[in-house]
């Protein structure tokens, strides 16, 4: 089992969600985050004083999937979240040690 974490542009959330549900991913967790990569922030002025905002609003999506689904998931996210412009985001894949469905107590891949 793998945990796929994607940081994307906020307005792409609906597209990514559709793309994932089309390949059969049944559940995701979404968090509003701020971050930056190589995309620089911007400068703002507040009452005449300049300040740099390095952190840009992003959305983090986490999906726990079976190991054999990972490539399809990466593909789906990449296709739907891509705008070609800087700041599109990143995808991280990590190993998932255990998964439990709270309602029934199922564990392992059946709980995904």
């Amino acid at each position, binding site marked *: 089992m793998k945990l796929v974490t994607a940081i994307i542009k906020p307005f792409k959330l609906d597209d990514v969600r559709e793309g994932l549900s089309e390949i059969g991913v049944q559940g995701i967790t979404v968090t509003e985050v701020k971050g930056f990569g190589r995309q620089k922030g911007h400068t703002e*002025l507040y009452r005449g004083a*300049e300040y*740099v*905002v390095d952190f840009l609003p992003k959305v983090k999506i986490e999906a726990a999937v079976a190991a054999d689904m990972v490539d399809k998931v990466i593909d789906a996210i990449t296709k739907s979240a891509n705008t070609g412009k800087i700041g599109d985001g990143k995808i991280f894949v990590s190993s998932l040690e255990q998964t439990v469905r709270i309602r029934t107590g199922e564990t392992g891949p059946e709980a995904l």
Partner: protein
Amino acid sequence: MDAITELSYALDTFYFLVTGVLVMWMAAGFSMLEAGLVRAKNTAEILTKNISLFAVASIMYMLYGYSIMYPGDAFAGAWWPGIGSLLGSTDNTSAEVLASGGDTYYSNLSDFFFQVVFVATAMSIVSGAVAERMKLWAFLIFAVVMTGFIYPVQGFWKWGGGALDALGFLDFAGSGVVHLCGATAAFAGVLLLGARKGKYRADGTISPIPGCNMPLATLGTFILWMGWFGFNGGSELVISNVEEANAVALVFVNTNAAAAGGVIAAMMVARLLFGKTDLTMALNGALAGLVAITAEPLTPTPLLATGIGAVGGVIVVFSILALDKIRIDDPVGAISVHGVVGMWGLLAVVLSNPDATLVAQLTGLGVIFAWTFVASIVTWGIIKMVIGIRVSEEEEYAGVDLSECGLEAYPEFVGSQGSGK
């Protein structure tokens, strides 16, 4: 006797000033309502629009608008207004007041003050409908034209004693002159502006774009409700004798009753249609009730006023849904609340005022709509050609707070030294 006349003058002047202040306070109401119904990333910009439009209206109406709208008795029954300016005019002297036998019963400037806050109200109706995607300065340029010219001309036709007044068109506090006018200008703007990105999907379904702050939206509605007592109450124009004082009291009661009717009706319709009680519909319902009674808050009984407001509440829910169906994107429902229900308000006058005729009301409605729509769409069109009225797609996604104001309404992640250092 002279002392009583002078006191009466002072009281009526004071009444204009105080009710004018209540109407000014509606600007705060609009600001909070709109701030609550847009997304967080667009909040600072809409607040900027609201405070700046009030300033623009105050100045333009002082410079030209007031004199276009109230050129004096020489223009009675006319279509063509006067051109003049408030600057340099003088107010009434004590001797003039006493000699007038009751005709001159308030300070001229108090009348200006009372009227200027109405212009600002009409203009602020536009700001909600074009929210989240219009260039701030395009909006302000339109505000200059609207408050200095478009509104005063149609205001002259009714309240300034012009042609609509001569035709017997009745509009006590402005369902037509203020609310329909503002909503029509908004409608023209939205037609040229287009919907927010992502609002109407390619497959025809509608995306909700929820507002970020329900407490502010509710606060704004209550502030507007309170200000409306000045809006309608002050439009009685006199309070200084028993009959007028009673009339003012009735106007206050009817205004309140209509708002209440609007809330309940809108809530019930929303509950029936959606299965849930939508707060935003209840808020719009209150305002719809208020708009509906604004054309005639004096002659109905409080029970009838409640009913008129309730009909407004029903209309507004369906109108909001209908506008979305035809892809007119109005983030706060301004066109429905002020325009569609404004029309109902004008027609409802015949239910209780024997001097009203359906023909005159329809004529007034049609003329105000036609004039405002044509003048607005020409103005918006010119602005669009010259500087454009819509922000770019990137700016819309990032939020107009950043592109237009350079600051955020709800800034986070600012380091302890005030910058990301």
